Structures are given as C-alpha cells and as structure tokens.
C-alpha cells in the first residue's frame, strides 16, 4: 500500500473509468437531477456519502460473511440488501438529528437507495481489491478510497452536466432538440471527452 497506488485509484475512479461517463452507471440521476447546479451538487454529495458508506459496509459483509461461508456468488443480492438498509437507516438518522441536512441531502437519498452506480462501486471493489491477493488492511483502504473517488467522479460529471444545461436553457436550441434530446447529445459528447483520460498512465 503506497500513496502512488492510492492516487492511481482516485484518478482511475474519477476520470479514467468515471462511473457515469465511462461505465455508464447511474445515468438516471445524471439526467434527472442535473437541471440546476444546486440540486446537482446536493445529489453529488449524497452519492459521495452513500458510495463511501456502501463500500465500507459491503467490505465487511464480503470479508466476514460471504467469504467464510463460501457464498460469494450471492454478493449482488447481499449488497442490494445491505445498501438499501444502510440508506434507509441513514435517512432516518439524518431526519431525526439534523433537519437542515435532511432538507438539502435527504430528498436525494431515496433516489440512490438502489442506484446502479452505488451497487456498481461495491461490485467493482470486489473485483479489483477483495478478490485480488491483497493484505486485508490494504484492500480495506483501497475499497473506501475507491468508493469515495467514484462518488467524486459522479459529482464532477453531474455538476458539469448541470452547468452545461443551465447554459443550454438560454440558447436557441432547435425546437425538436429542446430538453432531453440535447441533454443526451451533451452527455454523449462529455463521454467522448472523458475517453481522452483512458490514455492516462499513472505509477
């Protein structure tokens, strides 16, 4: 475990294989909640939070439940169960303890309960760190860093998208392209632009 490796994970999760623009996961909130940058940022924060928490919890479930019982083939269903419970639980706690935070973050939490990007980060973690021959503490830290960076990547993508869409509102777009169609084209162009990162070599 070294810093170079961690940096490679962060850059990899944020840019090279950005969850939205390279892996095409979590497209629903990417298009749905990117109308203005305030709510996009709120959504991004919620995703960072949930992805990090989900990475943490699924690491424990995988390492201490699924692996010892030799039922790792059940990881998808087990992860859905864990993540959904976790998000519900966190939402309840936030609503009780901090109504302000709940107002800004809480409305996005149910949206990402079973978001494929969140499940995706858990599965990617398993494939790249937990099944690899890594010492336990290394795989634990890599997993959490990867979850956090994936959330950052999602936030980056959705905030960029929201900024573009805010400008699109003021532009004279042809009538048939207004709204969702032009958004899809923009998303496609952004994905192409992010392809440029795949040439990046770190470490």
């Amino acid at each position, binding site marked *: 475990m070294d810093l170079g490796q961690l940096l490679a994970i962060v850059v990899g999760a944020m840019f090279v294989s950005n969850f939205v623009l390279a892996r095409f996961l979590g497209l629903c909130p990417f298009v749905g909640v990117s109308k203005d940058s305030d709510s996009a940022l709120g959504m991004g924060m919620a995703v960072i939070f949930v992805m990090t928490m989900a990475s943490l919890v699924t690491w424990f479930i995988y390492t201490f*439940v699924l692996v010892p*019982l030799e039922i790792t083939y059940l990881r998808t269903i*087990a992860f859905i*169960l*864990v993540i959904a419970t976790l998000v*519900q*639980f966190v939402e*309840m706690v936030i609503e*009780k303890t901090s109504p302000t935070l709940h107002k800004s973050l809480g409305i996005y939490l149910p949206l990402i309960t079973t978001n494929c990007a969140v499940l995706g980060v858990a599965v990617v973690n398993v494939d790249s760190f937990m099944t690899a021959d890594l010492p336990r503490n290394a795989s634990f830290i890599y997993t959490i860093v990867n979850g956090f960076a994936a959330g950052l990547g999602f936030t980056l993508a959705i905030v960029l998208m929201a900024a573009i869409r805010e400008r699109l509102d003021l532009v*004279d777009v042809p009538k048939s392209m207004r709204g969702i169609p032009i958004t899809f084209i923009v998303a496609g162009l952004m994905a192409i632009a992010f392809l440029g990162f795949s040439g990046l070599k770190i470490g």
Partner: protein
Amino acid sequence: MESVVAKSIIALSSMAALFGAILAVASKVFAVHRDPRVEGIVEVLPGANCGACGYPGCQGYADAAVKAGVAPACPPGGSDVAEKVAAILGSEVGEVTPKVAVVHCAGGQSSAVRRLEYEGIHDCRAAVLVGGSTKACVFGCLSLGTCKAVCPFDAVELDEEGIVRINVKKCTGCGNCVDACPVNIIELASVDMKVHVRCSSHDKGKKAKSVCAVACISCQLCVKKCPSDAIHMVDDLAVIDYSKCTNCGICAAVCPTGAIIDDIKARPKAVIGSKCKGLGKCVEVCPVKAITGEEGERHEIDRAKCIGCGLCLEACPTKSIGMVGALGHQRDRD
C-alpha cells in the same frame, strides 16, 4: 451441494431478518413527529412553489402556517385556498386582495425607435448585460420574453408588436416576472386597478418623445387634471399612487401621447336632464371639455368626448346630471 443451498438461504435470510429488525427499531427510535395538517395544507396549495407568500415554496408555507396557527396570504391561491387552509387550521380567514402584474411599457416595434439588432442569448437579463436595451429607450421593455419564460401560470403574452401583455384572468400575482425583469418595468398592483401608466422612461420630455411615440413626456397634464391627487411626477415620469386612484380614467383621456392606458373597456356616459339651469359648473370641472352650452340654458354633452369620469355629477348644483351606459363605474365588459 445441499450445504451450499442451506448456507445461502440461512445466511441471506438471517441478514434480511437482522436488517429488518434494525430498520424497525430505528423507525421507532428515530421517529419524527409530523403534523398531518402540514401535509393537508400542501395538498390544497397551488403547488407552484412560486414563493410569492415569502416562504421557500409551498412546503415552507405549510410549515409556517401550522407553526403560526394562522394562514399567511397565498397570492396565487386567492380566497379559495385561504378558506381551505383556514379550515384545516381552524382559524379565521385572512383578507386576501388579489394582485396582478402590471407592465409599465407599451413601446412596441411601431412606436419605439430601435437602436440595434440583438442576436445573443434569447433572454432579457443576458441582453441587458451585453449592451442594454435593443430600443433607443433604455428604460423600456426588451421584448425577449424572460417574464413569459418565468411565468408558472402562462399568464404573460408577447403580442406581434413585442409588447408584454398580462392575462389578468390567469395572473396570480406571484411576482416571478417582477423579479426576473432586468429593467424593472413590472409591478404588482391590485386587480381592481384599471388605469396604468404604460411607460417607465425617466427621460426628459423631448428625449422621451424622440425615442418612443407612446412615452411619458412629463407634460403634467394628468397631474393637473387628476381629481384625487393620485398621480405625481417622479423624475420626469408620471406615477399613479394606487392607494388614491379611483379608476376615473381622466389621466388616460388627457394624456397626449397615450402613455396612460385605461383598461376599462366601456364606461358610462353622462347625460344632462331637463332640470339643468345652465349654471356652467359642469363645464368648469369637465376634464375633456365635453360639455357645451350657453349660460342659463340647458347644456349638452358630447357623448363621443365624455369619458364617464363622473366629476360633473358631483359638481352639478341642481343634480340634473345622470349616467347612462348601465355598465357601472368599475365593471369591465371583457
């Protein structure tokens, strides 16, 4: 083989049971008391989240209403919503005077001089940032329709002249257009107010006239003729004080440029009865010089000129003037 199946079933169901138990406990421990009245109020509100009430959206209004125990005014909802909210809260109905947006500019393409062609972002706010108005009058409407775009009730129309028209029946007085207009020519006024100055130009008379045919040229005729002292000059612009205005329409009738517009489509006309002794009081007060006649003889009113302001009625010592037209003073035939 059986052991894998058994293990899987046992592991997953025990995990599910555990998580279920955690959530069940959490829902009790972290339960938040919600007032059912809040949800009820949100149901009856218009749901436009326009913010005209001064609270952040309809949810904010409902929270505040329940907390205070009385219903704050909801301008878009009007008295209907006020009654429903009051019924939920069990409080008295607050008085709601409906307001509508009034646009203080009537400079269309044919009347206002154009200064430049604007081909940028189709939004008044953007255009103002670039180079001010497209018209030679810097105070006037830009005709790019930002007010129309922000109106949640589809009450703003742009006619072919490029003049903004407010559909009074649809307008709820939420004030979104007032906030969005970069040249501040939209104002909220009581729906009962029917006479408005359709100009915002603070230019001096000559300059104003040179850039727009329907501008206020600060001639002050309206100020002099107003019987209720409701119109004043503010920086070379006639401004109506809506708290004093009686909708008499005299200012609109005397305005030489047509900058003041009377929205009452049809007004009654004055007629002089046979009791008239020709004292001439009515001739003195008539703002549009519609009354003629020799002293001592029955006077006559030119119906084409009469604007139905009713000043002669009050001035007549013999009470021989009446109004005909059956529409009443304040009613709009529309």
